[in-house]
């Protein structure tokens, strides 16, 4: 880990003074923790060590706009607001920043310099970098990211789109990206985080988002991980939901046919801590794994305050040699009475080589709660396949139609209409359906 220390030193000048102490702590923590192995309970089914290129470089990679980036931006629906990052570096010329009263949207670097203590107060305060390997690494090294602050009772009516492109040409680059989102009391926002490999090598990135949902505030987040092929991506979302606040987060992961080394891996660590009475968290996930992709969703809903509700809905479609991992935790802390928590995880295995490891984990320390979970792993219903085929649809197309039906439920869950519509179309494209 000597190399890590050297890299940190060479970057230290670019970090804000205020954050330096925190970063040093995070660095020390990462040096202790290292890259997790499968002996680690939380990484038991996800051998990150085997896929991640160990001698990674954390120095910001060059961030030239390439053709793939231009083409992708041109193909997007006309989202009103967007912030664009290339290899973690903010590109204002590719961004459309909302100019609204009570709304601060800028790069994290800018925010640290101009918004007084708010970044300092929130940055690195939700993630547990003493325990989380990749949150520690990110907290120590991240140089930029997005900052969103919505003031009291302000509603942003159009979604804000945070785009992260990876255009690295150095396959040892390990790009660190970061978002900090703070919603004050009664604020509301819809947000999409979009990750895209725009290079022709296998990229590696480590994303951390911290999101604060104030009293009565409402935050809808969609994580778009639509091109998992050629990527090793680690996503951490740490959120805190206060009294009567509401957070919904949907993670959509597609792996396209692989053209790289076939080591693609996506790991999502998603946590919601319900700290105020009446808070609600809704986590949904849809993942499509092909070839030998590995897609891992680790979800934790931590019921701390009483009278909170939560819901998890995860669905996976795995073919070829792809692997899925689902670990859904519900913690109910002492005092979190009248908790109502539900979790559902389903996976479709479309080939003999595909597999999924699904593990629900309920830890309940209060006595007046309602918690339940359901898990199902299986193949498509033969009865339904036959029904479709008796109308002339081939077995292949019938399979696609039923897969669409299976997956569609998660997309329907997405609150933000243009993003839901975009994903419906994407789903149809992915399954080659013409309806």
């Amino acid at each position, binding site marked *: 880990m000597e190399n890590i220390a050297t890299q940190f030193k060479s970057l230290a000048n670019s970090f804000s003074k205020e954050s330096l102490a925190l970063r040093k702590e995070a660095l020390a923590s990462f040096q202790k923790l290292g890259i997790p192995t499968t002996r680690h309970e939380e990484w038991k089914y996800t051998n990150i060590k085997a896929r991640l290129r160990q001698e990674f470089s954390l120095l910001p990679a060059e961030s030239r706009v390439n053709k793939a980036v231009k083409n992708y931006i041109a193909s997007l629906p006309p989202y009103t607001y967007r912030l664009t990052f290339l290899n973690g570096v903010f590109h204002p010329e590719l961004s459309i920043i909302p100019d609204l009263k009570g709304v601060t949207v800028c790069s994290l670097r800018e925010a640290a310099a101009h918004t007084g203590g708010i970044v300092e107060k929130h940055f690195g305060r939700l993630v547990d970098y003493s325990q989380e390997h990749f949150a520690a690494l990110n907290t120590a090294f991240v140089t930029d990211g997005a900052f969103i602050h919505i003031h009291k009772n302000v509603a942003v009516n159009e979604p804000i789109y945070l785009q992260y492109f990876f255009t690295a040409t150095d396959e040892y680059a390990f790009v660190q990206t970061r978002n900090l989102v703070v919603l004050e009391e009664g604020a509301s926002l819809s947000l999409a985080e979009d990750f895209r490999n725009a290079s022709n090598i296998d990229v590696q990135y480590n994303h951390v988002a911290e999101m604060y949902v104030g009293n009565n505030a409402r935050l809808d987040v969609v994580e778009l991980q639509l091109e998992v092929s050629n990527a090793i991506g680690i996503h951490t979302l740490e959120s805190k939901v206060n009294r009567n606040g509401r957070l919904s987060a949907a993670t959509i992961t597609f792996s396209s046919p692989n053209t790289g080394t076939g080591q693609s891996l996506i790991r999502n660590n998603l946590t919601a801590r319900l700290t105020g009475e009446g808070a609600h968290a809704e986590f949904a996930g849809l993942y499509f794994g092909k070839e030998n992709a590995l897609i891992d969703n680790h979800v934790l809903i931590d019921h701390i305050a009483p009278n909170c509700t939560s819901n998890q809905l995860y669905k996976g479609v795995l073919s070829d040699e792809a692997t899925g991992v689902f670990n859904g935790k519900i913690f109910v802390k002492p005092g979190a009475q009248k908790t109502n928590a539900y979790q559902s995880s389903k996976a479709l295995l479309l080939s003999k080589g595909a597999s999924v490891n699904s593990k629900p984990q309920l830890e309940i320390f209060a006595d007046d709660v309602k918690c339940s979970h359901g898990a199902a792993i299986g193949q498509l219903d033969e009865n339904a396949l036959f*029904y479709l085929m008796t109308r*002339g*649809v081939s*077995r292949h197309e019938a399979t696609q*139609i*039923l897969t669409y039906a*299976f997956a569609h*439920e998660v997309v329907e869950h997405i609150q933000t209409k243009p993003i839901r519509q975009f994903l419906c179309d994407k789903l149809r494209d992915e399954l080659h359906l*013409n309806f």
Partner: protein
Amino acid sequence: MQSMLSINHLTVAVNGKEILRDFSLTINPGEVHAIMGPNGTGKSTLAATLAGREEYEVVSGEILYKGRNLLEMEADERAREGIFLAFQYPVEIPGVSTTNFMKAAVNAKRKHQGLEPLDAREFLKLMNEKAQLVDIKREFLSRSINEGFSGGEKKRNEIFQMAMLEPSLCILDETDSGLDIDALRIVANGVNRLRSPERSFLVITHYQRLLNYIIPDYVHVLFDGRIAKSGGKELALKLEAEGYDWVKEELVAD
């Protein structure tokens, strides 16, 4: 004239148990045949075998459809060639609308016939036309296939799909089961409006009731896996009045 369907000495087993035994039947274009019989005599086995369900193993015999060996075709190919099965228990498929399903099915058939797929406008026109036939509302078709539908709605949806696909051979498996008299009339009207000299029907039913509305040319009584008696529409009335026991007795007397 070439027959629509010619079943010759067909024996079919399910899980090693023979259900249809040495069964023969010929249906010509434009004819409506009714198959009646007590439960468990092989009526639904016949329907499923014709539609191409894989669990039904053809032990011996042949089925010719328009002169071609039907047993060489998969279920989907049979459908594209013009065979339609209206299910006794239509399957519920949450997440796919009947409209989208029919778009896929109609265009699969058109592709098979070497035709271009219908565009959105043409498809809509076809759908509206056929929806009228069974008195189905548009909203109903944009709902998930059969999800939460009543028995009557499911059967109407079956006949709607049949109308959309314009098959040559329509097999109705206990379409009357679970229908009240109004639904039965609507479904039967839909079927009657689809009757034509080029289209044949095989109507499988336990009760004579449906045959008051869909008048068959021939009625066959299925017993123990084969046809025990055949006749005209009056045979159905006799069965309604006297039950199936006399057929059984005749069979024993033979």
